[in-house]
């Protein structure tokens, strides 16, 4: 039995364990040692988040006061149904990509950089976990920058394979920093009118404060800031290059977690902090975010169809999938919110599998260009089968997680009578079929080019890949666990906001 003393410290351990371990990864150097430490740490964080998830199942909200300083003055870590779920996603994806990274990173990154690479990887995970767990708004900024800075470094480490990784990282840095600074500006404005930075306290004081120009400005800055971080159309320009040129393990991890954490932040601020206490907030969502999200859904899919590079194709598909989550949010109904949250999980699982497949191709075939991967289905049957599963999930075919997301999202749109929105969602999944099938056809229906030898990916890559692919089937067939978690999280958010539900 784990002693109660440790259980009560779980929230801080969630962040502090990887935070302390990260520098040691750099010190240990050498491929296997750094990797072993990083992998061990990621397993521990996963165990911690699993325990946190289990202890929030009954609806309790864990609160941890850093250094014993009571909120709102001290920093508070707060774990409820929503962020326990997100923590589980982040640490789960982290642990599995770490397993995957061993072979993939050995191939893509110079041995002497391994220590630094894993150090940055663990830092990135720390940042994402910290952003998710904290209940203090300024703390969000700090952790956001920890994760972002390490992500820039991780993306740039793809430079051995392609020097464009450097410019991709640079552009990501510029846009990411602008986004984070926008968030800080918005936060400063909120602080001006409330004098507090604790989220729960902010929420309370903002309701008392009522409407004002300062509040509106703060809201706008924060939405744009997160919009940059979560790659909301048209603030997504950093994403395709960053995902394409980053090392494969990084693409898999970042695509599955960092935009998801940004979506979580959006949810947290919209519902818990702002809570729609003024009509302005609803108006912004309905008249600006919703149209942009819909354009993003369609434009992302359509652009993906014309990509030559598999990783870039997946990156554009991410932009489209993020649009689904935003649409779910803008519906402002329990159903829409739940669809959003469940899609957050479902898309993380499917996209992680897909980027892992792309990474396996990079390693075994030396390329991720679709035309060079013809006939790969015969040479790498297990890897390619995982792509088919993940791809079908993007389309939303039954028996995959994508279907569950689509079901809830369309249902939520229909409940509101938003027929055109439901139509667009469906239309976009048909476009998704076009880009997924383009690759599937190339992989299975064309002969292997002459003189090309490709071997099946090693087991340490296949196992995490298939855990994700298998999960996208399992949770596609049995969504009771994920839908229960999502609906709990959604009702928690709704309870915190000032919106009045029928």
């Amino acid at each position: 039995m784990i002693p109660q003393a440790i259980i009560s410290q779980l929230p801080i351990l969630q962040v502090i364990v990887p935070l302390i371990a990260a520098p040691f990864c750099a010190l240990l150097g050498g491929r296997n040692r750094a990797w072993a430490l990083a992998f061990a740490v990621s397993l521990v964080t996963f165990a911690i988040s699993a325990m946190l998830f289990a202890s929030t199942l009954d609806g309790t909200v864990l609160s941890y006061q850093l250094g014993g300083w009571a909120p709102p003055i001290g920093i508070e870590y707060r774990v409820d149904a929503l962020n326990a779920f997100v923590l589980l996603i982040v640490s789960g994806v982290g642990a599995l990509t770490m397993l995957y990274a061993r072979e993939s990173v050995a191939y893509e990154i110079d041995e002497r950089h391994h220590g630094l690479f894993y150090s940055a990887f663990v830092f990135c995970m720390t940042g994402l976990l910290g952003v998710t767990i904290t209940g203090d708004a300024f703390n969000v900024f700090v952790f956001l920058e920890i994760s972002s800075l390490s992500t820039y470094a991780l993306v740039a480490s793809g430079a051995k394979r392609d020097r464009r990784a450097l410019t991709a990282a640079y552009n990501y840095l510029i846009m990411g920093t602008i986004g984070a600074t926008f968030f800080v500006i918005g936060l400063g404005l909120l602080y001006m009118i409330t004098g507090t930075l604790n989220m729960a306290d902010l929420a309370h004081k903002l309701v008392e404060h009522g409407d004002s120009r300062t509040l509106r400005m703060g809201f706008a800055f924060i939405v744009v800031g997160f919009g940059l971080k979560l790659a909301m159309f048209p603030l997504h320009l950093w994403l395709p290059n960053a995902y394409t040129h980053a090392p494969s393990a990084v693409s898999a991890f970042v695509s599955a977690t960092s935009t998801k954490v940004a979506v979580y932040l959006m949810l947290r601020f919209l519902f818990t902090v702002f809570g729609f206490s003024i009509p302005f907030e609803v108006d912004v969502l309905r008249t600006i975010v919703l149209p942009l999200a819909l354009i993003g859904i369609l434009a992302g899919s359509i652009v993906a169809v014309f990509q030559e590079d598999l990783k870039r194709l997946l990156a554009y598909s991410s932009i489209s999938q993020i649009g689904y989550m935003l649409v779910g949010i803008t519906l402002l109904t329990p159903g829409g919110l739940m669809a959003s949250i469940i899609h957050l999980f479902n898309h993380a699982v499917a996209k992680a599998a897909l980027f892992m497949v792309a990474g396996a191709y990079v390693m075994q075939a030396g390329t991720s260009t679709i035309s060079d991967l013809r006939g790969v289905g015969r040479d790498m049957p297990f890897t390619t089968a995982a792509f088919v599963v993940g791809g079908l999930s993007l389309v939303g075919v039954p028996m995959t997680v994508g279907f569950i997301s689509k079901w809830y999202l369309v249902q939520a749109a229909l409940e509101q009578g938003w027929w055109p929105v439901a139509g667009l969602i469906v239309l976009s999944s048909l476009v998704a079929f076009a880009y997924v099938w383009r690759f599937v056809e190339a992989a299975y229906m064309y002969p292997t080019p002459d003189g090309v030898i490709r071997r099946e990916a090693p087991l340490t890559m296949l196992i995490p890949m298939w855990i994700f692919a298998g999960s996208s089937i399992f949770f596609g067939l049995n969504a009771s666990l994920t839908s229960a978690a999502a609906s709990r999280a959604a009702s928690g958010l709704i309870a915190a906001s000032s919106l009045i539900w029928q």
Partner: protein
Amino acid sequence: MPETLPEQVPNQLADLLIFIGGHYNYWMVIVLMMIGLYITISRGNLVKKIVGLNIFQTSVFMLYISMGKVAGGTAPIITGNPDEVYSNPLPHVLILTAIVVGISTTALALALVVRIREAFGTIEEDEILTIERDLEFPAQEASK
């Protein structure tokens, strides 16, 4: 009517001046912010972009610092005088953190620029874009 007008106009002007003057720090913040953002977006030189980004971030530091200032207040160190007015220390502390983050960002960005210079031989955005385009469409380059 004509008699009252001259009186009103100076009043409105005074109000406006008071409004502008009273929010002097915010105006400066906005000006800095716009300068910074403009440089970041408009310059093609990667180092200049970083300079712009720094100015942009500095404007935010100024926003926080001026926000914490209390008129007539002193540094928040307990003097023993019960009537002493202190400035609000919290925004200042926060901005210390933000400055650290800003410096790390600048350091990382400059390191990236060094690597870009090594890899591409230039730090001008348009030249890098030309090289990247050629990388993407090698066939066109060959046909030239």
